[in-house]
């Protein structure tokens, strides 16, 4: 915690987001779907437009001035992401499309050479499919065991099976999220990272839902790999980052092969380039990286501690207001342990119907399984409604949601 934390001024920040300058169905837009994807501030949009207009060319190859500017833009963004994650070395930051691709990169490149019969990959019941399906697939393909830690009745990960898992298998990978995209739970990862390393396993952290909302420090987390998506943190879609420990990345085979990722290519043999290039085949998402760098600047200026504190406030306010609505079921932890995400159901009304009626009132929420079918199964529901908040969210948007829910009840009365 920093001392003298500045307070977040959501109303001022909101003015940076052009999307709010419109009405939806004649109503002010209450955008409560930021956990799905965040909106973009003008600073990010302008950085990309300006880059296209003044500095665009391909990177790393061209000797002309635009090529130099473009390379500086891409590599400058990489350094911003390094600092944002407190990574020790900028060469350990790999640009990818999104957190899903980052996790696939690790699952394939590390998993295919390190997993086999007798080994186990451990995930939790609270994972997004992005940190579940790749591990399930690669583990089974390699003849390794895929083990899911269940949630207890409080919705927290039950660590009691760890002893048995370690007895029965050689644990090679522990993969879990830092913030749950569907319940908003902020995990205490320390017991799991410690246990993973005691087993000699790697710890893979899905920080796609954490990085937008709180300070993520790869060294403090003591993880081995960490994945983020730009689009959830005010950046453009199509760009994300993987951070990995240098010695692990260097020992890994490449994931995608082709241009730029090579050292030398001969008919007999191709050798791989140095980090990060070994994992960045093909032309990079150059301008998207520049946009992500601008998003990092934007979040740092607002202050990650201030963002986190503000989201706790919003979550507390939303939980209180939503609890007033008759027939509502709320899921997830208390406000102080959750990022700005609130999942709920209305008695007898399917989330799709709730979301559609809310949309007509200018309120955007997510309705569905949130790419968390194992969790939905656990909760015994097919889907939930999810309202999620960010640094531009105002309390009156939550009021608009609650008013909307009363209309939903009227329609279905």
């Amino acid at each position, binding site marked *: 915690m920093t001392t003298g934390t500045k307070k977040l001024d959501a109303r001022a920040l909101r003015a940076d987001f052009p999307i709010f300058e419109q009405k939806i169905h004649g109503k002010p837009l209450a955008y409560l779907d930021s956990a799905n994807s965040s909106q973009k501030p003008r600073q990010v949009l302008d950085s990309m437009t300006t880059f296209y207009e003044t500095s665009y060319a391909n990177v790393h190859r061209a000797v002309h001035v635009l090529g130099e500017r473009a390379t500086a833009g891409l590599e400058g963004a990489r350094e911003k992401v390094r600092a944002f994650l407190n990574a020790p070395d900028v060469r350990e930051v790999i640009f990818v499309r999104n957190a899903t691709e980052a996790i696939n990169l690790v699952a394939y490149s590390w998993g295919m050479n390190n997993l086999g019969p007798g080994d186990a990959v451990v995930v939790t019941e609270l994972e997004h499919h992005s940190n579940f399906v790749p591990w399930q697939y690669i583990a089974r393909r390699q003849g390794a065991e895929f083990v899911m830690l269940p949630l207890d009745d409080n919705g927290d990960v039950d660590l009691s099976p760890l002893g048995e898992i370690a007895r029965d298998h050689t644990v090679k990978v522990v993969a879990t999220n830092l913030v749950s995209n569907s319940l908003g739970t902020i995990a205490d990862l320390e017991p799991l990272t410690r246990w993973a390393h005691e087993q000699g396993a790697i710890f893979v952290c899905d920080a796609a839902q954490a990085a937008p909302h709180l300070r993520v420090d790869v060294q403090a987390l003591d993880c081995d790999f960490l994945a983020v998506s730009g689009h959830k943190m005010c950046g453009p879609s199509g760009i994300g980052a993987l951070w990995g420990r240098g010695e692990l990345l260097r020992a890994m085979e490449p994931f995608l092969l082709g241009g730029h990722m090579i050292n030398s290519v001969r008919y007999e043999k191709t050798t791989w380039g140095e980090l990060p290039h070994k994992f960045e085949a093909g032309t990079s998402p150059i301008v998207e990286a520049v946009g992500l760098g601008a998003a990092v600047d934007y979040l740092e200026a607002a202050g990650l501690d201030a963002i986190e504190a503000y989201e706790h406030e919003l979550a507390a306010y939303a939980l209180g207001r939503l609890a007033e609505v008759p027939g509502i079921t709320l899921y997830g932890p208390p406000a102080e342990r959750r990022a700005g995400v609130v999942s709920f159901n209305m008695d007898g009304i*399917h989330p*799709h119907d709730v979301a559609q009626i809310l949309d007509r009132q200018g309120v955007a929420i997510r309705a569905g399984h949130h790419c968390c079918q194992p969790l939905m199964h656990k909760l015994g529901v097919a889907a939930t409604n999810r309202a999620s908040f960010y640094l531009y969210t105002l309390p009156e948007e939550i009021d608009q949601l609650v008013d909307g829910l009363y209309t939903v009840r009227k*329609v*279905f009365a």
Partner: protein
Amino acid sequence: MNEFEQMYREVILDHYKNPRGHGMLDDADAEAEGQNPLCGDEVSIYVAFGDDGETIEEVKFSGRGCAISQAATSMLTEMVQGRSATEVATLDKDELLEEIGIPLTPVRLKCAMLGLTTLKVALHKAKGTPLPDGLAGFDELELT
């Protein structure tokens, strides 16, 4: 309230709250299960043919999901009763859409079509009737 009445006509809410043909058939001649993984709608359809082995004598469905998916399937069971399997296998989706009678966004269209598509798959499995034309456009639906 007018715009919501337009979105959720009384007849839709009525079919949703009091679904026709809700239940299962133990000795179904044709059955199939459909899911829409985008939103978690689920529908299972059971068909019993008449003595001619062709006329749909009884249709039941079970499942859970949004009002549109469940109401549309309920309406469908009334619509196909007494018609021949061959005819229903090529039933135009517009016939069902007219019955539903509300404008549907592309996402909700998938909800509305789940029952019909699942029924056509059931008929296909039992009678070898053609699979629905639209199936290509409904790749997200999981039909078994």
